[in-house]
């Protein structure tokens, strides 16, 4: 009781740190070395090369000097990032910092927005994604959205949707059943829905719907899985299930997860990229970004003084 009042007094005496966002402050950017010569921008701190142990995981995608603008308003500026298989890359940052835009550009979903323009290169296994057929790209780079978006059909049809649409010949139900089961098992949903796969997907709970969406994305066996704040609409238990799933998946697919839940990024990520106002401020192993951030903004963000 005493201590509480004294703490309250102290809190009243010393005002909390002012939440201040200095927009025109030159950011201190720490980016991974983009092929050695960086961005050629003299005002930036020298790019930090990664130790060899960091690159043990196989690089699947690479974003280079990516800039995306909506109707001329820049949402992502000059970002360079690798996406590796065998690890989870987490994009963190405050709302509106361009992390979702960056994620959506990885499988060219930004092209659905008519006003979006893009500069820079995105490569999948060394091949420029602009040279790939967009439908083929999206089959290799699957995406799970913030709001669970199961289609208005049965659970089975939801998971089988991608398989049916992607095959040149529509596979029969007998061929599909094992693949649907496998996808549902990988997404950790099988035990809950196995008794009735004909149930309408929209009658599932929110967490089940999101896992169904993950199963739908996994069914087509993508090489990269993009997750856009997959747990932001979910309860803690569903969140836990999905986070476990993400950690399990990373051996098979390269996982990129956008979150503005720092604790979540800390729990699941191997590498973390901190974005702020469209720029990549810091990229590095999760332990370094959270434990020993190099850029001032990252330090302020992970310590909670803004965001």
């Amino acid at each position, binding site marked *: 009781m005493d201590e509480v009042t004294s703490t309250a007094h102290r809190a009243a005496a010393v005002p909390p740190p002012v939440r201040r966002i200095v927009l025109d402050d030159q950011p201190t950017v720490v980016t991974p070395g983009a092929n050695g010569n960086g961005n050629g921008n003299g005002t930036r701190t020298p790019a930090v090369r990664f130790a060899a142990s960091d690159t043990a995981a196989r690089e699947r995608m690479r974003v280079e000097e990516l800039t995306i603008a909506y109707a001329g308003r820049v949402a992502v500026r000059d970002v360079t990032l690798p996406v590796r298989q065998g690890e989870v890359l987490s994009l963190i940052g405050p709302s509106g910092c361009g992390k979702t835009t960056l994620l959506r550009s990885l499988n060219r979903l930004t092209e659905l927005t008519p006003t979006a323009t893009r500069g820079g290169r995105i490569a999948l296994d060394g091949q420029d994604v602009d040279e790939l057929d967009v*439908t083929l790209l999206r089959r290799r780079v699957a995406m799970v959205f913030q709001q669970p*978006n199961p289609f208005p059909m049965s659970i089975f049809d939801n998971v089988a949707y991608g398989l049916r649409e992607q095959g040149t010949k529509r596979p029969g139900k007998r061929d599909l059943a094992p693949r649907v089961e496998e996808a549902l098992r990988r997404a950790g949903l099988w035990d809950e829905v196995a008794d009735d796969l004909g149930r309408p997907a929209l*009658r599932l709970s929110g967490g089940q719907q999101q896992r169904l969406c993950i199963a739908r994305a996994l069914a087509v066996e993508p090489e990269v899985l993009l997750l856009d704040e997959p747990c932001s609409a979910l309860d803690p238990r569903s969140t836990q299930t999905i986070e476990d799933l993400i950690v399990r998946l990373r051996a098979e697919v390269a996982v990129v997860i956008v979150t503005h839940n720092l604790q979540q990024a800390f729990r699941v990520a191997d590498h973390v990229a901190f974005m702020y106002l469209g720029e990549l401020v810091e990229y590095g192993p999760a332990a370094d970004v959270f434990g020993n951030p190099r850029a001032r903004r990252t330090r302020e963000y992970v310590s909670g003084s803004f965001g």
Partner: protein
Amino acid sequence: MPPATAPIAPRRPPAAPAPPPRRAKLLSGLGSWSDRRAELTLGALACAVLVLIGLMVVFVFSKAWPSFWHNGFAWFGGGGDVDRQLDNIYNGPSRPSEYVYKLHAWPLLYGTALTTIAGVVIGLVTALLAAVFIVEFAPSPIRRLLEPVVRLLAAVPSVVYGLIGLLVIIPFVNNHLIGEGRKESVAYVVQLNGSGLIVAIVILSIMITPIMISIIVDALRSVPQGWTEGAAALGVNRWRAMWTISVRSVRPAIVAAAVLATARALGEAIMLSMVSGSRGFAPNPLDGLTFLFEPVRPLAATIVDHSEGLSVTPFAQTLYAFAAVLLVSSILLSLGGWAAKRPLARWSAR
């Protein structure tokens, strides 16, 4: 410059509030109804509508009964010239015991079914494709032009369509599409003059398509973006996503649009009586292409065409029988629409 300040009104003594004007009282009275009162009043109004519909059905059937009673199931069958039978009913003896009722209405029923079904099928396919185009593929200037035009077309009175059909399409069909040889080939049965089945179907489908486009466009617009985005993220192109997700999920709206359009097509009288040839003839599909040019006359058009004969009791009763058939058809239509939508509701969100 100091801001203009309104003088503050002196506080009125609370003793004598001025009575508000009557009109304001009436309106404010309506606004302050209790829920209970509103519920009862609205419930009574709804029940009044039900009672009205019930009375209408009873009235029409009681009037139509003699026509059905005298003919039995033959009423629905074919045989003889239905126009001549109608003339006989009209010109029959005026003593009630000698009323003539003999009628085989098949050509009229057949004509109704032909024009309605063909018009709705053509219209529905067109409307669906047009709606998909407007929602998903049209560049925005075209979309901005198309949508008001479609809504305008939906509001054009049917008699205007009938007039255009009569003055433009029928002469064109008569002069350019029906050759002399075709006219002679059926001259001993029926005379072809341009008006007929194909003109009726074409104009009917043009007439009912805009309302279907509007309904389907609105439904497609309300498909959650997450669904189309989700399909796109699975590597499905816009065309496939449209059919497998959007159109699939708006099936209830498509059924509703079809029911509405069918009801309008069933009840359409003036336009059809102007362009259908207005002859109680059953076009024969075995005639090949000539089939399309043969005249018909649906039930509703028959009622309009013969409404001057209502003073003759058996004739009026015959027309009531037509009305009864239309009434039953629209009731069955509503039930059919309901039955078609019911299994689809299973997939929607709660």
